């Protein structure tokens, strides 16, 4: 019994190492005082970080990514709220297949999606820009947003909204006083998740960006110059840190919401 537990523990350690050790090389070498990415480490430095921050192109690409990410997150979440509500609150004819259809972009390879969007934009003569990148990201973000929000709305007791109507509030005030606050954890985690999906995306942005690029495309371009590699590592480590914080925060918000719901079930 005991040795079996130890075996499982070891398995878990190996599993986690397999997942995260490669990623951890990024921050490790970003502090290494050498141009070359190789062991042994030659010393600690933060020069690659200062070099990165000094580079105006980096901050410009970063700002572009933030803009695109914020727009994609906001629009896809706003599109997803009524959809998720309709799918959970009302018996929509063909609701299940509609949900599957909306989720389809998740299963289309991004490269296919990128090429088709590019063809569409060319055909309609819309010039490539950060706007087209954001539009492409919305296509991929909406399924994530709907999935997060549906799981949030599903736990809703329908009588909470009815109680609000019964207590004298109209439909609009009921949305603001009951529906919105209860859905807020789901909305926040939908925003964060959509933002991350957009921020991390390379392929779609690669196809749909004009001359103005997002951060992943900028990084890809920098890899051609060996002397820039350490500062790219610093940038990667920075992105890794921010992503981790965001994802952990989104998950915390979501599980806090679920907790809320669980308590209610137990109490009832």
């Amino acid at each position, binding site marked *: 019994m005991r040795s079996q537990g130890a075996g499982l523990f070891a398995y878990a350690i190996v599993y986690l190492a397999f997942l995260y050790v490669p990623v951890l090389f990024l921050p490790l070498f970003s502090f290494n005082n050498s141009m070359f990415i190789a062991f042994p480490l030659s010393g600690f430095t933060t020069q690659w970080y200062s070099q990165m921050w000094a580079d105006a192109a980096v901050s410009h690409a970063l700002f572009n990514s933030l803009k695109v990410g914020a727009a994609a997150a906001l629009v896809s979440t706003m599109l997803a709220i009524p959809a998720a509500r309709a799918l959970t609150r009302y018996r929509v004819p063909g609701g299940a297949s509609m949900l599957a259809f909306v989720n389809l972009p998740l299963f289309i390879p991004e490269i296919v999606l990128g090429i088709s969007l590019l063809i569409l934009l060319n055909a309609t003569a819309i010039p490539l820009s950060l706007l087209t990148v954001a539009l492409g990201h919305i296509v991929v973000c909406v399924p994530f947003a709907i999935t997060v929000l549906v799981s949030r709305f599903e736990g809703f*007791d329908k*009588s*909470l909204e*009815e*109680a*609000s*109507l*019964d*207590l*004298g*509030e*109209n439909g609009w005030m009921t949305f603001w*006083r*009951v529906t919105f*606050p*209860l859905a807020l954890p789901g909305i926040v985690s939908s925003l964060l998740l959509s933002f991350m999906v957009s921020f991390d995306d390379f392929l779609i942005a690669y196809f749909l960006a004009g001359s103005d690029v997002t951060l992943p495309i900028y990084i890809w371009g920098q890899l051609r110059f060996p002397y820039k590699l350490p500062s790219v590592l610093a940038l990667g480590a920075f992105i890794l840190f921010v992503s981790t914080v965001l994802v952990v925060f989104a998950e915390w918000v979501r599980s806090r919401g679920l907790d*809320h*719901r669980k*308590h*209610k079930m137990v*109490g*009832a």
Partner: protein
Amino acid sequence: MSDETYLNIDHVTKRFGKVLAVNDAQIAIRRGEFFSLLGPSGCGKTTLLRMIAGFEFPDAGEIYFEGMRMTDEPPHMRPSNMVFQSYAIFPHLNVFNNIAYGLRRERLARAELQRRVEDALVMIKLDGFGPRGANELSGGQRQRVALARALVRRPKVLLLDEPLGALDRRLREAMQIELRALQKSVGITFVFVTHDQEEALSMSDRIAVMSAGQVLQIASPRELYEAPNCREVADFIGQMNFFDGKVTGRDGGMARIDAGALGMMEIETGASTGASVLLALRPEKIALSAAATNSVKGTVMAAAYLGERSHYNIDVPGLNEPVSVATQNVGKIASQGHEPGDTVHMTWPPGALVVLPRD
């Protein structure tokens, strides 16, 4: 309590697809009355309540509050408030804000709002619970908060959708008494939905018994129990023995009925000569004795001792079903016991038999 109709449900019909949920319901609820809608699940009682609240709208018929037509008004325009089966306590608000929720539109001064909510908390014996989170309440406390949240708005009618269903038995019995006392003290009309006949009998001024969308009988608890108007009501409220009978002649208000194995009897009823009728007899109206004249003889098939009372199934030659009998164990134990196989004689007072139409 006055006899004035306060809430008038006038020939209301509601369909869900092909299902007839409520069929031509006609109920006049009086001011200040504790009125129950009683029936098995799926009988349409909750649909009817939701139509009174404004969550559903009738396909036909009208609903009047104090003579005012409210059939199509949304819930927030009606002078009623509801206690939901799940209580629907807002999980993101504390107890104080849950109770104050419906007072926002009244634009009360801060002190007045505070006073109204505090009074409501005192009424439900939860004073000091205002800052508690909704998740920190027990089932019984949630139920009280739901009550206070509805009553603080001073509704003309309080609608209650099986509010005691989620509580355990002891708490439910305590809440039945409290709820009844509360209704008497606030003096407003309660419309109470339940499938529990004991609950309905013990709390209500009047009860409407519903089945399959139909209102079968509207009467006081005593009348429903002593004089049900059809087999379904008789069957649903308490236990009942049924016997077949045939009217063989009439003498003034009395009908002479041939009840087969039970013999010939004279009962006051309007049934005409030649009519087949159903005779209903409550188990506890029957007295058992070892020997008696002018009685029905039978054999004890099964006996169950239940403390303050005993139940027997008595086989009577000529009857398909055994007769169920309940006796109070008031005397000494030795004088009470009837064992399976014993021959017993059944007697009942005149008037105990209820004559029902045959379905």
